[in-house]
């Protein structure tokens, strides 16, 4: 698989009050960004257990973004 075909899968943990709200605001202002992110909404980044991050890699995520 050459580089351009490669489409990284990114798992995102977004905090409902900050980053998730920023993502909504980005949508309202129609900013465009790459579609590789798959979001899991959590109430706060405090909820993100190290086990979730490791499990994310076990499940094959190429990158994990946690946004507080």
């Amino acid at each position, binding site marked *: *698989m050459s580089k351009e*075909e*490669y*489409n990284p*899968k990114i*798992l995102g943990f977004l905090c*409902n*009050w900050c980053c*998730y*709200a920023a*993502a*909504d605001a*980005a*949508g*309202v*202002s*129609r*900013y*465009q*960004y790459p*579609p590789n992110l*798959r*979001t*899991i*909404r*959590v*109430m*706060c980044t*405090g*909820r*993100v*257990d*190290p086990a*979730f991050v490791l*499990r*994310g890699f*076990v*499940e*094959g*995520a*190429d990158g994990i973004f946690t946004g507080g």
Partner: protein
Amino acid sequence: MVEAGRSPNIEILTNADLLSLKGKAGNFKADIVQRPRYIIADDCTACGLCTTYCPRHQVDDYNEGLNITRPIHIDYPQAVPATYYIDPRSCLHLTHETCQICVPVCQSKAIDFSQKPEERTLEVGAVIMSPGFGRIPEDTLAKYSFGKHPDVVTSIEFERLLNPSGPFTGEVRCLSDNRHPHKIAFIQCVGSRDIGCDNGYCSSVCCMYAIKEAMVAKEHDPDAEITIYYMDIRTQGKEFDAAQKRAEDKGIKFVRAKVADVMPWGNHLRLTYSTLDGTHSFKPFDMVVLSVGLESPPDADKLADMAGFKLNKYNFCDTDTFAPLATSKEGIYVAGAFNGPMDIPESVTQSSGAAGIASGLIKKQRGRGIIHKSYPDEKELGDEVRIGVFVCHCGINIGSVVDVPDVSNYAGDMDGVVYYTESLYSCSQDAQEVLKEKIKEHDLNRVVIAACSPRTHEPLFQETLKDAGLNRSLFEMVNIRDQCSWVHANEPGAATDKSKDLVRMAVAKARHIQPLPEQTVPVNKTGLVIGGGIGGMTAALNLADQGFNCSLVEKQDSLGGNFKTLSHTKKLIDLVKKNKLVTVYTDAQLQQTNGFVGNFTSIITSGKGAKVKEYTLDHGVIIIATGAREHRPETVLGNTIKYSKKVVTQSELAEQLEGKGKNRAPDSIVMVQCAGSRGDDLNYCSKTCCTTAVQNALRVKEINPDSQVIMLYRDIRTYGYAEDLYQDARQKGVLFIPYELNNKPVIAEKGSKLSVSYFDPILQDDVSMSPQMVALSVGMVPEETDTLSKLLKVPVTADSFFLEAHVKLRPVELPVDGVYVCGLAHSPKPINEIIVQAQAASAKSAMPLVKGYVTVDPIVSNVDKDICIGCKLCTSLCPYQAIQMVKDENNRPKAETIVASCKACGICASHCPTFAISMGGFTNEQLNSQIQAFGQAVMEKETEAA
């Protein structure tokens, strides 16, 4: 609209006209007549069969006459109440006693031509007038050949063209030959700022909606060339300038010119206009949109003399600056565009304020008319997981990018999914009925909705689940609009894949969702108002009027804030002092606040020097009214400024003019607008400086008629009725000269003489002069909001004003429940808007106090006693002290949640060594299954790509 439709305490009387209104505050008698719908509302299933069979054609007013419909129809599928009606003006049977084809066609026999007008008398305690605004008469549009050429449309017609339920299902087409318009022109101030049709006021909203319509048109057709012809761009609201800047970046051209006329030119249109530098230009356009203003409602006079209140000279409702929602008749209040042309956020704020005052007026009768809504009892969950998936089009918002049918079918064959479908607008009332039916029909016990953001619409769907007998936690929402179709607009394939993944992850989580009981906590029925200016005092007085006591905390040693000298402020101060329900703390500072809506405890210090005392206050709600102060920039438009007797700000000039000094009005003065604002130092518009500057200019001319007053401006934003002041100033000889950012005026001080030089676009030459005074129209900055935002954990915008929960739907509430904001702390605004916001804030804050209890979101933490090893880590890590150790039956320490103060952040759960703690709605198992479902996406992707 949906909420109003289903609230048991709102009786919607459509097709109804007011016949008479008599009585006094607290006891009015209103006679109304309800014109017949000729359809029995409860039986009509809105199936649409009758419209297909009806032979008669009729112009569709809802689509501004751009479309044809039938006498028996519904305006739009999401209408509330969702029933059809027959238009008596065109129905063959009602006009010629013939036809009646629809009667046998209707399956549910809902058509009943025997219906007669019904008169009813309503006995009410108070009345709120919100009849909205009227349309600009067509003859004022004639000079732009409106009606002579089909492609000259009004802005509301253009809005219908843009709307997916419009005549061309959302495609913008010329009405002359159906082609896509490539060059579109917007002409501003049509029917406003126009003494010709005695609409001398500015309608305040046209600049903003023109920009919005241009942006949406650009979204439909990215290479459309759109030009807006304007006199002043008036985008003075909060974040409005940012929207204008975004429009410019998107390639929308703004030309400062008044368009003389629009001539049909074959299929095209030719615009003739002249710009400031005197050059005449003719430009061809495919379509011309007239940004029509807002007129007073057509039946304003009838309403006024029926109810006995006065109208102002423009036939809008006459109100006083310091009582902007009260009409001249006690007990009758006004809200919305009938008060004066305004935008939606302002109308919403006014209606909340009017509701608050009305509730204060008849607080003795509160709660007597109320029907308490009862929900069917929660049905027992079967063992089998039966999930329903509903994928939404949201008009074109999702449907135009994401292949909704594909996503819906994809969801269909997932484990546990027993029903899947799509809907055009899943948040509309008819879709909610479908949702309820499907839950019953397929015995669904979990619902997944793929639509917009749960942050805005989760409560709406949860309410429908409760109505269908399902626990409201058995619900998961997938955001495929704000975080998918809107942000991956030009990658439909990737957006569809992403939607499928997100739906699969949501279904994976849904399989593990459990019903969670709702908890309620009692409310402490008092308020805390921070800031004792006009806003704070009005809010405190209104809370007291509604029967709740509150404490008012003022930083300085006396109440009054920025407008201390005004007579109205003095009146407010002694009203506050006399009111038994309001306790005032001066020289007071908020030290600490914790707790949550309904149960806050705050510590404040009050008193000066040695006598500083500390008070602990228990209260249910907080209203922030900390106001703002004048911004004194060091440099203005690149010139360093030394404030002196000769170089003053507008407020200093106003003070000087109020004084008694003989030559207090200078012989020559230059006023500089946007001094330190709109990108110069602050990057927002402070909304009031133009009006204050023009008032000062008039005051100078009044005292010293032959003085020379010159105002250098970028846009004169005297919106609403203030336009009359601008008109008056020009007639009195005040010179208004626009400057551009690329050719800024130069202000310098040589010795004792001032020198100002600028480029005059009309003379097309540089002018320099040495005025006696220079007045800088400076903006305002919020009073140190950072400390308060940290104390109350509420967000502030980039300009450090408080960030409201939603600019239109919840303009005076902050994202943190129980905390409200009003006045200059929210954004710069004139006094009447401060008072309206204060009244709205006190109305909204009274709601939890009226209800008496607050439901706690069931997403709090819970501890499994078997697994907990009592290591006490969670109690030390919890930022809200919401978890404590208790002894279990054999005396071993176990952790336990304090449900009332838990904020559901989940730190305890993620740090618990033995995974003993789980969060309601975000359990370890649910999140793990979501991650696992995400994993499957990788597998499919690789196989495709490999």
